[in-house]
């Protein structure tokens, strides 16, 4: 029955969704919390911008489990919350909602209609968080959710749909899947990278300072080992972590290239499946689309060298030289500081040496050092 709820075809007029990872992580948080505390169901609102062509989902807020009754959101609670949210996110408005499930369910249409009718949300988008995605351990796993928009179907042949709802006023509604991509602000990316590299698991530790050790545990061998051999200073850590990120990215690029090479190598020899291919590729003997994409990619490589190569080289060279100058300056500053310290030491030691040379007793403060026997 649920399958009937999904409108089969997509439409060119549907908006494209840009989702910020912040919203996704916030939904994670909501799901984890509800899962642990066993409070549910999980429903929340999406806040963002709608410029007609694209809908950008940036923030979320949760509709607490206590404010969900009979598949509807508590009207007055929700409008108060929306008002508060508009105070702190003046540029954003209510653009849709989310819940957890495997596919659209009849009760989803209730909330979809509620958003549309009661909260001036013109064409709400519906994010369905699909945990079952995590079960397939694909390397290039897709993100665990689908996006839908609600459309009112004119045909009345699906009368069984709103049998669950006493109000006949809910018009028959279907969900049409819409495309989405991720949009990440630079600051968001930095936050995410920090979480990826540095965040530990959420094990509760009965508050001692051992928590810092606990943090290291989850960082994996790469971070633990150098600690035992030598302790990199904070400065070195910065460089190290930047190199590590680059290394991972290069590795990723390499693995992608390897995949393409492996795919191409497999082609002429046999039209049969290859272990390194994803199932989608192996369904047809020759996937012309894939081959064409690869050909296009190879052709475009020639174009990636920038048009104004001379200027670019000059600019990067300049940036590098600036960096070197800065390095020299830093060293100079350090040396100046060292020299100053040396000067002071000489200042203390020199008179004493001279006095000793002249056969006089050394400075009073240093006497203790000489006759310790």
């Amino acid at each position, binding site marked *: 029955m649920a399958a009937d709820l999904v409108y089969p075809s997509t439409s060119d007029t549907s908006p494209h969704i840009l989702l910020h990872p*912040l919203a996704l*992580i*916030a939904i*994670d*948080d909501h799901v*984890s919390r509800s899962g642990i*505390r066993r*409070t*549910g*169901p*999980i429903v929340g609102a999406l806040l963002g911008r709608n410029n007609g062509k694209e809908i950008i989902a940036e923030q979320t807020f949760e509709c607490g*489990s*206590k*404010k969900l009754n009979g598949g509807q959101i508590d009207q007055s609670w929700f409008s*108060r919350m929306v008002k*508060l949210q508009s*105070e702190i996110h003046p540029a954003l408005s209510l653009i849709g909602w989310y819940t957890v*499930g*495997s596919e659209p369910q009849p009760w989803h249409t209730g909330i979809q209609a509620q958003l549309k009718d009661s909260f001036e949300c013109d064409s709400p988008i519906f994010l369905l968080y699909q*945990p*079952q995605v995590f079960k397939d351990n694909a390397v*290039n*796993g897709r993100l665990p959710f689908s996006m839908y928009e609600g459309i009112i179907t004119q045909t009345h042949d699906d009368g069984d749909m709103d049998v669950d709802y006493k109000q006949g006023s809910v018009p028959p509604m279907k969900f049409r899947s819409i495309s989405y991509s*991720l949009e*990440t602000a630079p600051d*968001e990316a*930095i*936050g995410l*990278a*920090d*979480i990826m590299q540095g*965040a*530990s698991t*959420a*094990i*509760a530790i009965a*508050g*001692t300072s051992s928590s*810092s050790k606990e*943090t290291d545990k989850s960082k994996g061998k790469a971070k633990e080992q150098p600690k035992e051999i030598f302790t990199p200073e904070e400065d070195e850590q*910065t*460089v190290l972590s*930047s190199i590590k990120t*680059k290394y*991972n*990215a*290069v590795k990723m690029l390499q693995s992608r290239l390897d995949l393409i090479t492996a795919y191409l190598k497999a082609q002429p020899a046999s039209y049969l499946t290859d272990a390194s291919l994803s199932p989608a590729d192996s369904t047809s003997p020759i996937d012309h689309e894939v081959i064409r994409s690869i050909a296009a990619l190879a052709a475009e490589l*020639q174009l990636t*060298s920038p048009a104004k190569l001379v200027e*670019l*080289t000059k600019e*990067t060279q300049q940036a*590098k030289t*600036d*960096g070197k100058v800065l*390095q020299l300056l*830093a060293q100079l*500053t350090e040396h100046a*500081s060292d020299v100053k310290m040396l000067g002071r*030491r000489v200042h203390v030691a020199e008179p004493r040496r001279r006095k000793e040379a002249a056969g006089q007793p050394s400075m009073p403060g240093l006497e203790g050092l000489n006759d310790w026997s």
Partner: protein
Amino acid sequence: MDSEWAKWEAANGIKELVDPTRDALYNFDEANQKAFKSSKVWKTDPNYFKNVRISSSALLKMVTHARSGGTIEVMGLMLGALHGDTFVVTDAVRLPVEGTETRVNAQDEANEFIVNYLELLRDSGRPENPLGWYHSHPGYGCWLSGIDVATQANWQNFDDPFLAVVIDPERTMSQGKVEIGAFRTYPENYKPEAVDSDQMIPQEKAKDFGMHYNRYYSLDVSYFKSTLDTEVLSRLWNKYWVSTLSQNPLLSNRDYTTKQIKDIAAKITEAVTQQREPKSMSAGVPGPISKDPSDKDMVKITRASRRLDVHQQAGAIAADVKDEIFTAPIPEK
């Protein structure tokens, strides 16, 4: 409700998504929290709280909020729980106030919002307590100014345990790493042992910093993520590695670097003038080596310039890698 939830939970496999041990911090024991709060164990030791653990969601919310303010300071509230000497921050919410550094009573304006918001949260079944406040210091590092100290001391008087978190969005961008600090103020009459900060404070803020730096201490900050986050993040990485390769921090941080150099230059000039002033030499008699105040300044300047250098190096590596992969001529065959 319970059986309904159980059914729904089972249908969607929610249980398999969380791990009672690994996700323990997502739980909340209201009675336990109340008991801890009334025990007032932290009253005996001004340094009682030592750690802060911030959830992935709260961290992202704070970082993007700080950045959204640009050069204007922004402010928000943190929610969470207390675990022994650790503040566990599980959520963050923006407050409708700006310019927290220039106005003493900024947070008063937010009080109405805070009250309303918390009421709505509680109503809906989220019992977390307000745990602290965060605000941004765009470009001048994480520490507490005089106004911040007053604000924080006020919070600690009314609603202790309370925490202050500061985020510097500009340094976050330039370092490619979140610049964050967590602080608690000392009681009015408490004299802490020598505190030394390696913060690089811009010249125009140095006075403010110097007047209040011994009124508070900083806590260790670490982050935590859920089992679910780990799954999602590994999938997100599939999209991110591209931008990691394509960015060029040397170019994007130019303004910040210039500002830093200017600041270091100003500090060097000041150090030089101090050095030349005859009174600092105490009429030719050298003091004990470590006590000369200008030495400390020198150490700070050195450290700041080294840090800047390190960031340049990291940026240069990024540029080199990019160059090597994308710009280097393709060998002809």
